[in-house]
């Protein structure tokens, strides 16, 4: 088990980190993406998809509504999966994710930690969290500056754990 930690300061940097990370992922892989709403999970996938020449960053969008987005690259098929609205094992079963696991597939699963099986089966876990831009404090702590609801250039802490 090895953990690496990165700090990015903009969406551009998060995408760039995704590109680097994509270069290090060889299929088959099951990757869990952990982080609250707006932590930057889809942004990171934009970079990973670019690394695999599977899609350009601007074409990678949130799969919340559609649940599974597929991006085909020359070396691997990427499946960007969002389980935000899936709550029970029965619903998960009906998604048929097992059919997507093949030798050249990479599954990038958001909200996979809701289900114990993914905690067990995952090869890589990427945890993303928002950092307060100036104070470096966790975003869940109350901010002193009431007026700034602006999260434009917020920093992200990204921890990558491999088994």
């Amino acid at each position, binding site marked *: 088990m090895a953990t690496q930690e990165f700090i990015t300061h*903009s*969406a*551009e940097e998060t*995408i760039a980190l995704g590109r680097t990370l994509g270069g290090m992922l060889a299929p088959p892989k099951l990757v869990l993406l952990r982080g*609250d*709403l*707006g932590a930057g999970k*889809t*942004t990171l996938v*934009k970079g990973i998809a670019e690394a695999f020449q599977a899609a350009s*960053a*601007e074409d990678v*969008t*949130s799969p*919340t*509504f*559609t*649940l*599974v*987005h*597929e991006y085909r690259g020359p070396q691997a098929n990427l499946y960007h999966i969002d389980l*935000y*609205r*899936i*709550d029970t094992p029965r*619903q998960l079963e*009906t*998604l*048929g994710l097992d059919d997507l696991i093949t030798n050249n597939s990479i599954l990038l699963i958001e909200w996979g930690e809701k289900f114990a099986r993914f905690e067990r089966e995952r090869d890589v876990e990427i945890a993303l969290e*928002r950092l307060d831009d100036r104070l470096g404090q966790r*975003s*869940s702590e*109350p*901010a002193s500056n*009431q007026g700034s*609801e*602006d*999260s*434009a250039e917020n920093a992200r802490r990204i921890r990558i754990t491999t088994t």
Partner: protein
Amino acid sequence: MAGAYILGIETSCDETAASVVYSGERLVSNVVFSQIAAHQPYGGVVPELASREHLKAIVPVVRKALADASQTYHSIDALAVTQGPGLAGALLVGIGYAKALAFALDKPLIAVNHLEGHIHAVLLEERQKNNREMSFPVLALVVSGGHTHLYLAEQQDEHWSYQNIGHTRDDAAGEAFDKVAKLLGLGYPGGPIIDKLSPHGDPTAVKFAPSQLKHRDRKDNGDPVAGSRFDFSYSGIKTSVLRYVERHDMEASIESRRKALSKMEKPALEDYLLHCDRQTLNLVASFQRALVGDLITKTLAAARACNAATLFVTGGVAANNELRRRFEQDATMEGLPAYFPSRPLSTDNAAMIAAAAYPKFLAGEFATMDFSAEAGMVLR
């Protein structure tokens, strides 16, 4: 020009729908079996569940569409079905059924892009009102739970072509509505609830910075192609609402609201209002104001840049009251005629599929029996 009764079938996502439309200009019947009730306990659309519901509903829905139109399987001239984009399993139910029916009846089958359908929903209703003089190019904003797309549409004889000039870089507008509603404990689907609650809050109470509605995944300076694009981003505003909730310690009241509302079978507006404090109503109103404002600003900027002569606003979010009102006002001020579908034709329906199929029927663009669902289908 040959008139034709076309039976349209649509199963791309939430709704099982069938409709008979005459020559793309007269809605004869329109049946929509909404699966929202079936999905509600899960807070969203679950694909396999969707497919199963479509399977259950499709035969009675088609029969009712024919009966309402005083038509039979044999009297219609052609069938049309949604090919994509959508959930693969759900699309396949409609496609499989339409293929079997077309084969058995020996009628032509037309495959239609769902997004093209939304654009033709507007045309169908305008023709029905005897408005046949559309000035081109038409700029169409298709805005729903899964889409926020801007298309420039041109027509040459019977052939329509579309150029995508903008789309969301992250979340669709309808998804932002859904996620904000869910994180505020208001349930699913979120758009209609937020729309109903917004007039009860102060839309100027919470300020969302313009930067929260700007996509930041590309440095698009000087690139002429990038410069001509009008992309949207609704992930940032969702995060801002979440941060607002965290900073103002609203979690406990949200949780109690979620619990109270989930116990009710069909909460009425009064029930929502009873469980929403002023702060929540202000947040909801401010969120809607900001999102709607951004949709309008970017769409009108695109219309100016592309010299659009006509504006269409269509898709599920086009049913939003504030969006319609402000689009009408602002587009009129720019001398741009703006058209919306009626509310029943804003959300997913099959009339739009039957209407979009008519030009293809005239051009003889029929689907072969080997075509299949295209989950990520692009509109060109």
